């Protein structure tokens, strides 16, 4: 049963009561297999967007035979409306670093990187200080897993794991074909585990409280808690940790300003949910894409919202495949043409078809997800697109 009230939890940001890296020290005394199995059992899914089961990813990575393996913490956080990874890195960096180190230990990885988006460069000094402390502690524990920061250079698509790897290799951040997955063939051709910042912090948390305790949060389909970055027309903007599985109505009642017209769930890559669907829609893993939630009240023009998204997409498409490169521009020009009366309202249906074609024919998640916000806005706010 979904929750009809939001349930605020406070686990991820709770300061550690134990000595720094105590969870790490304790965890690496266990059997690697057990730790991975516990993570599988917890049901934790990646918090970066795609929602792949984290335990399974680590299990596959552990099976790869290679002298060199990399662990990359994806701190590219480019999805509009997301800022929770920054908060984790600022407030509880040790949980994130512990998660990376536990992952490396469990999968026999040899080197770690924090891929930090260029926009967050002001975090570098404090993170380097944290890494210095970590390296000291790791040495005491006999753990040989150095971590460094790789600073991005400004490109939304570089949050996509293979584009991220390309950019680390000094190339244009153009996504690769999958398979092979980074687990098999990643950075410099070596097995590479890419996880989101929150995924690493959550893994460390599960090692501390245990899978049983973690599973008590959430519903049968949606395990655990998750961070939501809330912005827009809300008196409570900021990062909130909530149990998974609440209805959008509960969410809007808690975080809206009383006049909520729609909520964009999952950032620009996600869906725009109108008020009439609040009762039945659950904010969950299927649509969270990193936990971006942007709230719009009745004064907002949904045409302007969509125009802003399409402008973003047209700019951030890496241009590698035609449906995405041309499609994003055509959708933008298309809604402008309908708005100005150059094209009839029925043209919107053709545009929806085009966006659906992009889902099937684009190479990566960027082009594939344009239709999510496009179709949901055009279908639910059609009159605003025309008049």
């Amino acid at each position, binding site marked *: 049963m979904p929750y009809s009230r939001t349930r605020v939890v406070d686990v991820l940001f709770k300061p550690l009561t134990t000595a720094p890296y105590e969870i790490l020290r304790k965890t690496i005394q266990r059997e690697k297999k057990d730790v991975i199995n516990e993570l599988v059992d917890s049901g934790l899914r990646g918090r970066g967007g795609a929602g792949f089961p984290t335990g399974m990813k680590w299990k596959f990575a552990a099976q790869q035979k290679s002298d060199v393996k990399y662990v990359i913490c994806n701190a590219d*956080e*480019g*999805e*509009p*409306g*997301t*800022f929770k990874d*920054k908060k984790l890195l600022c407030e509880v960096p040790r949980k994130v670093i512990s998660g990376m180190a536990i992952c490396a230990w469990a999968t026999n990885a040899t080197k770690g990187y924090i891929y930090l*988006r*260029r*926009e*967050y*460069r*002001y975090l570098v000094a404090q993170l380097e200080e944290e890494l210095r402390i970590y390296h000291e502690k790791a040495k005491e524990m006999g753990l040989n897993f150095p971590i460094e920061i*790789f*600073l*991005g*250079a*400004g*490109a*939304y698509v570089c949050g996509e794991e293979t584009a991220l790897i390309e*950019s*680390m*290799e*000094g*190339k*244009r*951040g153009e996504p690769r074909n999958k398979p092979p997955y980074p687990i098999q063939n990643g950075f*410099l051709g070596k097995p590479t585990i890419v996880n989101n910042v929150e995924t690493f912090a959550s893994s460390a948390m599960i090692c501390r409280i245990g899978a049983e305790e973690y599973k008590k949060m959430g519903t049968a389909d949606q395990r655990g808690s998750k961070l939501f*970055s*809330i*912005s*827009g*027309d809300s008196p409570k*903007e*900021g*990062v909130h940790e909530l149990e998974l599985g609440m209805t959008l109505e509960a969410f809007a009642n808690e975080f809206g300003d009383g006049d909520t017209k729609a909520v*964009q769930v999952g950032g*620009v890559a996600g869906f725009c949910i109108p008020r009439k669907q609040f009762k039945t829609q659950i904010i969950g893993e299927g649509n969270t894409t990193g936990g971006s939630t*942007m709230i*719009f009240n009745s004064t*907002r023009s949904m045409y*302007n*919202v969509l125009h*802003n*998204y399409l*402008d*973003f997409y047209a*700019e*951030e498409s*890496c241009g590698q495949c035609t449906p995405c490169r041309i499609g994003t521009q055509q959708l933008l020009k298309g809604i402008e043409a309908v708005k100005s009366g150059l094209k009839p309202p029925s043209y919107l249906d053709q545009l929806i078809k085009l966006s659906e074609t992009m889902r099937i024919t684009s190479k990566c998640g960027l082009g594939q997800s344009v239709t999510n916000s496009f179709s949901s806005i055009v279908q639910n706010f059609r009159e605003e697109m025309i008049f």
Partner: protein
Amino acid sequence: MAEVKELVKELSEKYGNRRESLIPIFQGIIDKNYYLSKEAMLEVAKQLDVSAADIYGTASFFSFLDTDAKGKYKIRICKSITCDMKGKSGIIATLEEMLKIKVGETTEDLMFSLLHTNCIGLCDQGPAMLINDNYYTKLTAEKVRVILGDYIRNK
């Protein structure tokens, strides 16, 4: 500004001559010379033994690897939806009026470049902007005048 040849040599000694060193080298050049000039990119191409076209192709891909914006201070205003809703346009108008340039341009004295940027993760505190590596939030016209005034005085 540092002499390009020396600088590229220094940076490739620090980060290595491999292709993976490219972005850190670019970053180092921008930190010293404020943008990637044609000469700098040619020098990097030579140093890493990669074609100049490939080097330029990579640089032009990333929004923070400035190949045009030559200003010492890059002002990047967030244009994503929530900053837009909270009054980004007014902030841009104030900046344009103070600097006497439009978005995308650089002041004649090469001190400021005014740029748009996509989400910078300050959505709960918009409108927001970056000036080089520093961030400024909950901007108002008055606040912008004070912030920019400080930069102008200390430039």
